[in-house]
């Protein structure tokens, strides 16, 4: 029964993912912003994982097939996603000198996982990647009033939280929250409702006070 619940959540998550990709692609066609293309590539990779997860929940098939030592397929996919995430961050931060770093980290962590049966290095890597990216994007998004950056930041934050706890129900739920936060970012929600437009607010306040004065 729990598996069915997870499947429903996963389908909703996947649908939001597809809507996000469609929206970012549409925006990219309009302004050719490289960040939108990078977001599309990243979310596509995330959705590949989602398709496998849906298959797992639908068929009850166990994805945790051990490859060698403590390394299983689920973890390899996690590593690949974090590698893409870190690459995405270095691309956004314009740090080409660090482009090879995520691949090297991932290779060594996978080797370490084969040699020592401990999840701690993976969790630490996930936390650093997730929270580091979230901090950078939310900070930058606030500064530049960029809703998409805020959305991506929240996506990484919730995704990172889910990966930290390693409890399936939390992981699945937080992933859904993450995707919704990103979807809202692509729809311009944060620009509209979160960022305070001082000029606009003063205009409204001015009108409101003016109305009061007229009434009196």
């Amino acid at each position, binding site marked *: 029964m729990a598996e069915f619940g997870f499947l429903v959540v996963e389908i909703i998550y996947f649908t939001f993912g597809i809507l996000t990709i469609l929206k970012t692609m549409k925006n990219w066609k309009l302004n050719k912003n490289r960040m939108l293309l990078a977001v599309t590539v990243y979310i596509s990779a995330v959705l590949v994982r989602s398709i496998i997860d849906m298959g797992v929940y639908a068929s009850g098939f166990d994805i945790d097939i051990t490859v060698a030592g403590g390394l299983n397929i689920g973890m390899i996919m996690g590593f690949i996603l974090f590698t893409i995430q870190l690459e995405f961050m270095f691309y956004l931060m314009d740090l*080409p*000198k*660090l*482009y*090879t*770093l995520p691949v*090297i*980290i991932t*290779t*060594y962590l996978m*080797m*370490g996982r084969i*040699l*020592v049966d401990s999840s701690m*290095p993976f969790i630490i890597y996930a936390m650093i990647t997730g929270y580091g990216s979230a901090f950078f994007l939310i900070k930058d998004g606030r500064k530049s009033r960029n809703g998409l950056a805020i959305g991506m930041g929240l996506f990484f934050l919730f995704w990172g939280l889910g990966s930290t706890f390693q409890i399936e129900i939390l992981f699945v739920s937080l992933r859904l929250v993450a995707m919704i936060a990103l979807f809202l970012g692509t729809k311009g929600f944060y620009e509209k409702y979160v960022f305070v437009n001082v000029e606009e607010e003063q205009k409204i306040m001015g009108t409101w006070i003016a109305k009061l004065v007229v009434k009196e």
Partner: protein
Amino acid sequence: MVENIFLSSITQLGYILNIIVIPLATIIVGRKLVKEKRTTGRYNAIRGLIFTIFFSFSILVILEFFVNSPVFNLPLLIELFGDGFESFGLNTLIIGIIASLGLTMVATANRWEFLYYTSLFIFGGMILLYIFTGFEALLTPYIYFAGGASIVFLYLTGFRVKDNGALALAIFFTIAFGTVIFDNPMITPFGVIIYDIFILVFSLGLFKPFKKEVMA
């Protein structure tokens, strides 16, 4: 008997020359680096790398002198220094850094930005993997591969971009790695003396097959 005394004397002469010439060459290159910084306002990356390679090599030869000298008896240093390329020790650590810096120099001279720090990341990861898991099987292949690749690419770079530094390091690496690989009492001491003389010639600025130097 006479042959043994001759070879032993040549070997000792090589050690003594090493601890005089290599640090002297490091100081000369370091002075040039600082002088250039004062004139141009920024460090020359190629010269900085040559200085770091020479500095690492100075530490290696000083440690080697204390380890091999019959006068000093330092069991802890001998143990930490290690023997051969099969396991991690101060010896392999410094040789690994030198080989990695050779590849960094190739990337810098060719302006392959995404490869600038790749070799250092790989070697750093190897050290961390060893610290956490005790795995060191990659060390020997890495040192041979990085050393060989450094030599080949430094020659190619030296001739391609007409860089005196790259060509000098290629020749130096060839002799130095040659003496290590062909560890023969008849060859090694002469190899050491030859690269000492060559390094001195290069650091004094007398090795200039190309008139125009590359600026990275």
